[in-house]
């Protein structure tokens, strides 16, 4: 039986349908979870997709963290359930306190929509466990606020605990230490700015996102 993956939809999410298609490609059964429901509906994994949840008002993710579904997502994460936040989903997870740090406006103040090269720095996370350590994946970015920042103490902790799971080969947005993705201490919550669901077919220019998405359902 295939795994059920819940894809959270907020008002303003816009990558959920792409993610459902991508889940089918890796043999999982994707289903949408509405932000206003206080449940993760018994799914095996949760993905918070990209978009502009609640219009990104105040700060990206600042209002989404109060959506009723987020308490259920936090509980699911605390019990060890896999949770992945992509782009706006990463911003939501940092605002919700499920991941450390914050995403600021890109260095250079440009909205960036381009392919990016990511190096797999750790395979010890639910997003990278099926990828090859040290491999370079081509996965697109599409964001204005993707400049990862955290204090020096947090950065040292992330490095010491091998929690920087993906780094940009050529840092596009000013992220500290070239960070593209990080995980929590339990390694079951991962956030990244690039969009693996947009690198799932040769027609899209790359299939490298599949290695990441397969990890979620491995």
């Amino acid at each position, binding site marked *: 039986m295939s795994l059920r993956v819940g894809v959270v939809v907020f008002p303003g999410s816009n990558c959920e349908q792409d993610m459902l298609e991508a889940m089918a490609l890796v043999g999982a059964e994707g289903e949408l979870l509405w932000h206003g429901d206080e449940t993760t509906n018994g799914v095996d994994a949760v993905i918070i997709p990209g978009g502009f949840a609640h219009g990104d008002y105040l700060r990206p993710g600042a209002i989404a963290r109060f959506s009723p579904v987020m308490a259920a997502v936090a509980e699911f994460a605390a019990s060890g359930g896999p949770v992945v936040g992509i782009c706006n989903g990463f911003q939501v997870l940092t605002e919700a306190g499920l991941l*450390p740090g914050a995403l*600021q406006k890109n*260095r250079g103040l440009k909205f960036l929509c381009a392919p990016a090269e990511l190096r797999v720095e750790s395979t010890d996370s639910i997003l990278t466990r099926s990828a090859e350590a040290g491999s370079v994946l081509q996965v697109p970015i599409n964001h204005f606020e993707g400049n990862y*920042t955290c204090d020096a103490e947090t950065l040292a902790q992330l490095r010491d605990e091998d929690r920087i799971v993906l780094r940009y080969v050529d840092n596009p947005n*000013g992220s500290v230490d070239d960070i593209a993705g990080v995980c929590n201490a339990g390694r079951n919550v991962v956030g990244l700015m690039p969009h693996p669901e947009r690198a799932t077919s040769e027609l899209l220019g790359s299939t490298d996102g599949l290695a990441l998405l397969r990890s979620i359902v491995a």
Partner: protein
Amino acid sequence: MIFSVHVEVRLRPGIADPQGSTIEKALPTLGFDGVKGVRVGKSIRFDIDAADESAARAEADDLCRRFLTNPVIEDAVIHVEAGAAAGATS
């Protein structure tokens, strides 16, 4: 009793401010050569119904910490004054 609150949300010292630095770099082209240290923030105003000023301030502090700022990158200066803000419509 009604208190008007003005919250200035600022990036914490040491946090890069690309908007501020872009504005600063543009100023010399307008002839403003002596302007330094431009930082961009947000200004948020609201009214609070509270027993006294310290209660209003405590509530505004809590609201800022939990919602209006992201303490990882921002802090806030909170101004509290007795009376509804001029121009308030509700």
